[in-house]
């Protein structure tokens, strides 16, 4: 698309897009490190994730602040307006993803011990890899305004839901085997739920990308959600 006659308007839009991607980078990093801390019981790493949430919140504040200023000053229309509203929505989703990472880090402090059953570790790691892959793809789709890629992210959410459901069953089994597992397994169940939610937020962002580029809602996926 051609540049705006007012160059400062382009600078504003570039700033906003860069802020979204910067938030995306931080959110990805927080989740990866939180899960790593969880699996290895690395309390120091967990603490650093908790601290980083403030940075992410600060980025969202900068994003919203500039977006509101641009709306007030330049009265954006059509695709520009969708870009700005979309960026604010993505900022919300990314901030929530950061919160999920922080929550996993907090539970790491509570659990205090490495996760043992190899199958469980593998399951959680796989769930995390899938969620982070979804997030990476959706941020790529945003950076390149790639509708096809965004729509693919929207369709791929099922795999995460399936793994989450199998982890849920597995954790139930451990709890039934020995009631002393209940505390840790409940924490892990919440962690798994958090990671599954990250996938949902990645899907939200992908839907926002479709809306930003086309002006139309992303095709909705019919079917029931798992627990």
């Amino acid at each position: 698309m051609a540049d705006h006659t007012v160059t400062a308007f382009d600078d504003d839009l570039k700033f906003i897009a860069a802020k979204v991607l910067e938030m995306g980078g931080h959110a990805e990093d927080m989740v990866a490190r939180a899960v790593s801390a969880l699996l290895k019981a690395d309390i120091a790493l967990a603490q650093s994730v908790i601290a980083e949430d403030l940075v992410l919140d600060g980025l969202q504040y900068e994003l919203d602040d500039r977006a509101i200023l641009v709306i007030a000053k330049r009265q954006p229309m059509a695709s520009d307006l969708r870009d700005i509203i979309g960026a604010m929505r993505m900022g919300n989703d990314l901030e929530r993803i950061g919160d999920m990472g922080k929550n996993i880090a907090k539970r790491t402090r509570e659990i205090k011990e490495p996760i043992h059953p190899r199958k469980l570790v593998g399951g959680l790691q796989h769930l995390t890899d899938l969620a982070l892959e979804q997030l990476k793809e959706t941020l790529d789709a945003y950076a390149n305004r790639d509708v096809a890629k965004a729509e693919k992210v929207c369709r791929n959410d099922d795999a995460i839901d399936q793994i989450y459901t199998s982890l849920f069953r597995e954790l139930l089994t451990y709890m039934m085997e020995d009631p002393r597992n209940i505390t840790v397994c409940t924490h892990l169940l919440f962690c798994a739920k958090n990671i599954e939610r990250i996938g949902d937020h990645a899907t939200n962002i992908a839907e926002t990308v479709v809306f930003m580029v086309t002006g139309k809602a992303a095709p909705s996926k019919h079917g029931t959600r798992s627990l």
Partner: protein
Amino acid sequence: MTMARDSNQTEASAVNDMTPQAIDAAADAAVKAAPKIRAEKVAVHYGAKQALFDVDLDIRRNQVTALIGPSGCGKSTFLRCINRMNDTIAGCRVGGRITIDGVDIYDPKIDVVELRARVGMVFQKPNPFPKSIYENVAYGPRINGLSSSRAELDDIVVTSLKRAGLFEEVKDRMGEPGTSLSGGQQQRLCIARAIAVSPEVILMDEPCSALDPIATAKVEDLIDELRENFTIVIVTHSMQQAARVSQRTAMFHLGYLIEVGDTDTIFTNPTNSRTRDYITGRFG
């Protein structure tokens, strides 16, 4: 299948059973649905230079249609075709066909003075007559013979000023010159003058470009109210104003009508890339 056939039969017999009143009502509805103004293949030349090319545009009744586009795109030229203001410009030729309620306004039998009473106009710069506030509004109805007594004329003046949202501000100074009013008040006086002769269509050529934001808001509010009784066509350079006051928007570029559609769509998701570039400030 049986169901469908049955309902068709019911429908057909319903038309046969319609009362004369119902037929009148249906006819009224059909008239209301037809466009107030229809432009077909309108082309305008100023001497050798062509300013408009093959413009086809329907203007719906009781709606505000905004004409937008960069300077020199032909939007004001098109506006002036609707009440034949272009007739006054030497060397200007209008081709194609413009009808109002199905009647060709360029037909030689059309009385241009009468046409301009039916199609009022408000200009960019407020241009009250160098007369009193009262006379500014009373002049049109008087020369058009719309009143038979002073009381009736008073009534038209008061009603027009009220509809233009100006009466309360000027009721105690009707004898003062129109030019003594503020810019925003002068523009509303011009609108009162335009509606005093009970036109069907009001053309507005950048009516707010010389006004401050408060006066602009008052005129925009007025446009929204006037829509109930008039068909309004407005040329504006303010995208926000077009988005706020109109229901339909037509985008002109280099003498061509390049896109027309519901205002909500034009300003959120235009189809044409030049419309998109223009409304988002990327033009040229």
